[in-house]
């Protein structure tokens, strides 16, 4: 694979827009104008470039991230599954579509200590609620899942905003 060609898709102005917005969008009536004024470019250009980054998937989405914990979802379970390799893509896509799954990834196993290759984050008000939702996933996966577990966070050791150098 070549060096990430996406890098070339971003020029200096894009990177300045990323830096100016990665902590959040201004809460002003014309937020894109506010960014434009900060950077000394036209508002139309900021909007055009952000729309382009959205179309390219460099911006996943623009919106709000709810704080599940503060909203009462105190039991956050990382459900993990050992799914047959030849079925994981089809099943992973279906697990991701369940309305209570907020993240869904295929990750590498580390045998023999870690046999799980499908990770689905499930939020619930209680562990019982998480376990109930995990049973829905178990039914969906059926015999394709040869083992599973639920890991709960018992302590936050560090939590900082994700900042990506741009």
């Amino acid at each position: 694979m070549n060096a990430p060609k996406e890098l070339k898709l971003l020029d200096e102005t894009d990177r300045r827009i990323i830096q100016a917005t990665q902590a959040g969008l201004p809460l002003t009536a014309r937020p894109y104008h506010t960014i434009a004024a900060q950077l000394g470019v036209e508002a139309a250009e900021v909007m055009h470039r952000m729309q382009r980054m959205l179309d390219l998937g460099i911006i996943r989405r623009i919106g709000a991230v709810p704080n599940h914990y503060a909203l009462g979802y105190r039991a956050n379970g990382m459900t993990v599954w050992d799914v047959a390799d030849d079925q994981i893509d089809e099943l992973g896509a279906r697990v991701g579509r369940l309305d209570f799954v907020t993240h869904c990834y295929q990750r590498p196993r580390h045998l023999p200590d870690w046999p799980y290759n499908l990770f689905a984050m499930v939020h619930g008000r209680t562990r019982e609620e998480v376990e109930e939702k995990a049973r829905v996933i178990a039914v969906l996966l059926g015999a394709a899942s040869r083992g599973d577990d639920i890991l709960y966070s018992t302590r936050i050791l560090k939590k900082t905003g994700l900042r990506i150098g741009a």
Partner: protein
Amino acid sequence: MDELDRALINTLQGGFPICEQPYAEVAARVGSDEAAVIAHIDSLLQRGLLSRFGPMYHAEQMGGALSLAAMQIPPDDYERVATVVNRQPEVAHNYERNHRLNMWFVLATETPEGQREAIARIEAEAGHPVYNMPKIREYFVELKLQV
């Protein structure tokens, strides 16, 4: 939380518009006005009910690397290793979890090489192996928490 708070959390999980006055457009969707929408988003952020509001950038698309990594740390060495892991600038989140692999952290680096360097540094300073679990595939999820 009032009705507008709930409506904003339910509708703003994606699809915030790119236009001259996006908050006015959102206000039209939820049956409110621009100033109230701005004030309520501000308040939701201040109260910590929203952890972020704005564009979510895709690290890998920007050439960066994200990974989830885990370690198995004996209880009597746990606090020392937590200090080692937490002081690495590449570690964004770190959680204690109830499993034999009892420390789980997210590594965010500008390059894939940076990720390898951070892991090597953590292994050397902590004296325990790191199980690196970068995503192989991400399955699409709808953002749909309803409050």
